[in-house]
């Protein structure tokens, strides 16, 4: 056993124990660590954000790329929402952001998330896996046909579709449990191996 002498490791380990202490009971130690975590996260985000602004906008502008003044001033308009008289101005950068985002996303969305996914279900039906993909897609889609009354046949298909979806949700839930256990393993490794040196 060789306990770490690094102050950062000690802070991290004690913070982790503080967070886990809520599992026993809500307590002041947990509250303190929780507030430190929120504050530190916000602080890091501000520092990195300012660093990004400096690297991508301010420094290049000072070095002669004066066209960057336009996006910087447009960005500042976002803060006019705090002044009632000028708050309408914040719609300009917002609409620009929304429009740009939608335009950029549309570039590949149709092909990647619609055409690509549909064509992936059109498989050669020579394997059991292919049949499962083919039938699972069809039955699951039938569950969402809400524009007409469910008949005898469509009742069966939508029910089977629901089982397919439940299997998918089960897989997602299993992976979620695995992810949460992984998070705990990470902290235990930090506390037991890095901090306590066991």
């Amino acid at each position: 056993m060789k306990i770490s002498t690094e102050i950062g490791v000690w802070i991290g380990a004690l913070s982790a124990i503080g967070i886990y202490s809520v599992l026993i009971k809500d307590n002041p130690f947990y509250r303190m660590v929780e507030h430190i975590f929120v504050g530190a996260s916000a602080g890091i985000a501000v520092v990195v954000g300012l660093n990004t602004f400096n690297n991508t906008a301010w420094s290049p502008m000072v070095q002669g790329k004066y066209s960057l003044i336009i996006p910087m001033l447009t960005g500042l308009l976002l803060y006019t929402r705090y002044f009632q008289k000028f708050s309408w101005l914040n719609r300009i950068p917002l609409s620009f952001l929304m429009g740009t985002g939608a335009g950029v996303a549309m570039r590949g969305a149709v092909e990647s998330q619609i055409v690509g996914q549909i064509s992936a279900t059109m498989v050669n039906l020579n394997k059991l896996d292919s049949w499962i993909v083919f039938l699972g897609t069809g039955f699951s889609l039938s569950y969402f046909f809400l524009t007409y009354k469910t008949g005898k046949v469509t009742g069966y298909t939508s029910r089977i579709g629901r089982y397919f979806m439940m299997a998918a949700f089960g897989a997602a839930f299993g992976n979620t449990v695995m992810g949460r256990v992984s998070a705990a393993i990470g902290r235990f490794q930090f506390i037991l191996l890095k901090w306590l040196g066991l």
Partner: protein
Amino acid sequence: MDIFEKLQNLDKRVFYILMALAIAIPTINPIGLPIDITKPVKDTFDFVQSLPDGSQVLIGFDYEPGDEIDLSPIAEAIFHQLASKSIKIVALASYPAGPTFAEECLEVLEEYGYKYGEDYVNLGHYAGGEPTLAAFANDPLSIFARDWRGNDVSSLAIMKQVSSMKDFSMAMTLNDGPTGGTGTHEWVRQAVMAHGTPLIMGVTGVMAASNQTYVQSGQCKGILAGLRAAAEYEKLTGKKGTGTVGMDAQSIAHILIVAFVVLGNIGMFVVRRPRVQPASISASKPGSNSPSKPGSDPSSKPVTPGGEGK
């Protein structure tokens, strides 16, 4: 009260303690349970192995501290393989914490004699998500004037070989979702659809099922999900790391969870009593001769169409 009733009312803190022991004991004393290589991991490994030696790859660190244990081991495992092929690495991040993880993971390259600025670079954080990634894909230098360490990006040797996304032989995103950063869907759109650059994903376990569809459709060349995939990748590269160390604990913890789920369900079926209609309870009370008024009996419930009392 029999054993199953006691289990139904078990204090959840008992479960927490058992879970803590299930993780702590194998962490301190590894058992060395076997790790099988699954097809998605093997396919990803084979794809990376097929990349041209000495080419450049782009790695996005798109995750927050909560998912570090899932994704950083994947990054380190794949860096060993990339370094063995002398592949150059350009790292960037859409989350503020991403560049810090990139710095930590890129340290594994030092044992291969990699030089910063020539063989690898950490460009740092970019704001704006997908539109910024799209702009980076067209002209990397338009987004990053300085890297995470403050160097002039245009002066770095590695960046002189890159003028657009097409110059990367592969892109990879280590991703925990689109909230606040660039998600996997955005990477597919901007790397694969817009520029035809092959993409692989390292994702959290939660995201594995929803992103598997991109692999099946061929839009993504490989997917590595969580700590388990990292352990498998470490086995393939022959470099044991955090993933391998954590697998014993993960297996024991999963056994414990499954055992409790099974026990809980058995207990529920054994303990469950047949439901009795409220009206029949009222009628069967000894000495209850007069009809009870609505609300006078706390066990009675209002009769509503479609409700329990119908």
